[in-house]
């Protein structure tokens, strides 16, 4: 009996625990826009997004796609997305409602539920101010942020041993081959063209770019974005009924998509207060 209890403690977490922890990790993932900007700053001088990659070889082409989130790269390979929805659903299935939490964990809940779209701050840990740091001179004034000082608390010295526990790193993204990288570049260019056209209220041009994408990459990595932009372009371009139909289909299929909010606003779905142009 004792052994069984100990085994439960020492073994990997079950689906309930795993789903919650994965949901927490995904919630604190680096936003795609920030990821793209940082990579642009890193890779530009090396021939990445800012430096052009024509004829640069597979490594550079692959590098130019590095801003893609691991989940997006996984999608390119037909893998399933992280189970944030499933994880959050498990929470509900387990009956762990906010009402229950609210009576016990008011502060923690308030801190998060106020705006779930903005990740809650991660609890800071101690920084050893004497730790060896990589090249202080690397902090160019132009990119130095102003921040609050973190709490400095030393970690206690080691204690005696216990039974080792196995931890298994979860699989992460894989490397794209050169063909995939080139395709992704072309896909991205088409989607960005549509996006730029929408920004200028040129719905027809946007739809043309999206049609081109659909013809070339019917099952492309950016198919989700294409569907979203298609609905937005139609709703904003005077095809409101068709646009709404596309929007609803998109939202049914991708309820957690990054662009879901924008689709709702553009097509006035579910009480969105946005106005049509």
């Amino acid at each position, binding site marked *: 009996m004792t052994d069984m209890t100990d085994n439960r403690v*020492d073994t990997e*977490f079950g689906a309930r625990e795993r789903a919650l*922890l994965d*949901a*927490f*990790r995904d*919630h604190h993932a*680096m936003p*795609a*826009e*920030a*990821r793209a900007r940082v990579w642009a700053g890193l890779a530009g001088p090396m021939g*990445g997004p800012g430096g052009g990659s024509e004829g640069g070889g*597979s490594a*550079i082409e*692959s*590098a130019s*796609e590095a801003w893609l*989130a*691991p989940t997006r790269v996984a999608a390119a390979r037909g893998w399933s997305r992280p189970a*944030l*929805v499933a994880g959050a*659903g498990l929470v509900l299935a*387990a009956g762990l409602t*906010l009402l229950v*939490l609210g009576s016990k964990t008011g502060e923690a*809940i308030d801190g*998060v539920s106020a705006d779930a*779209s*903005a990740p*809650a*701050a991660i609890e*800071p840990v101690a*920084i050893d101010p004497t730790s*060896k*740091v*990589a090249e*202080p001179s*690397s*902090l160019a*004034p132009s990119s*130095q*942020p*102003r*921040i609050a*000082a*973190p709490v400095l608390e030393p970690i206690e010295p080691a*204690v*005696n*041993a216990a039974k080792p526990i196995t*931890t298994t*790193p*979860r699989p992460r993204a894989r490397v794209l081959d050169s063909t995939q990288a080139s395709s992704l570049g072309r896909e991205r260019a088409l989607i960005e063209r549509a996006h730029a056209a929408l920004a200028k209220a040129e719905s027809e041009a946007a739809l043309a770019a999206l049609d081109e994408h659909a013809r070339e990459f019917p099952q492309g990595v950016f198919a989700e974005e294409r569907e979203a932009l298609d609905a937005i372009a139609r709703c904003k371009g005077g095809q409101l009924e068709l646009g709404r139909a596309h929007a609803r289909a998109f939202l049914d299929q991708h*309820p*957690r*998509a*990054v*662009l*879901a*909010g924008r689709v709702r606003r553009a097509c006035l779905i579910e009480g969105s207060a946005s106005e049509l142009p």
Partner: protein
Amino acid sequence: MSARALESSADESGELARIYRDHADFVWRAVQRFGIPPEHAEDVVHEVFLVVQRRMADFSHTTPRAWLWGVARGVASNVRRGRERASRREQVSLELVASEPDTPEDHLRRAQAVALVQRFLAELPEDKRLVFELAEIEGLSGPEVAQALELDLNRVYTCLRVARKHFRAYLDQLQSESP
């Protein structure tokens, strides 16, 4: 530039791309754990990967996240020390692709999951919390955690075992008390 130099540059770029793609999220969370507020995390992540770029030769393929954790800790420490002399970077206007929650139900579910874990972590002692976060949220192995935190491996296992037990008990308790 010679063909060899071009090839070398391409290899380096590809390697950096792989590191960035696989570990940017990890570094993003790590710098915030070192006290960098979310609104400044992007800048610090950039600094971290600039260092990575320069120190590619030191990059550990066997324990990449432990190595990145160390770099992130160092950069965060530097940023903290240098904040007084830092000039504030002009805030770039962000392209707000989609900032609102998907639906009220999704919002609630996401908030629940995050709140549950957040509250649990807040109640854990510092040492156990760090080990738990790196092992169970970031997916580092025991030796990687030990290297990142400069702890004895057995200490890591002890902390992890205790934290796991607490997490299960925490969820069991919430579940048993829910209507």
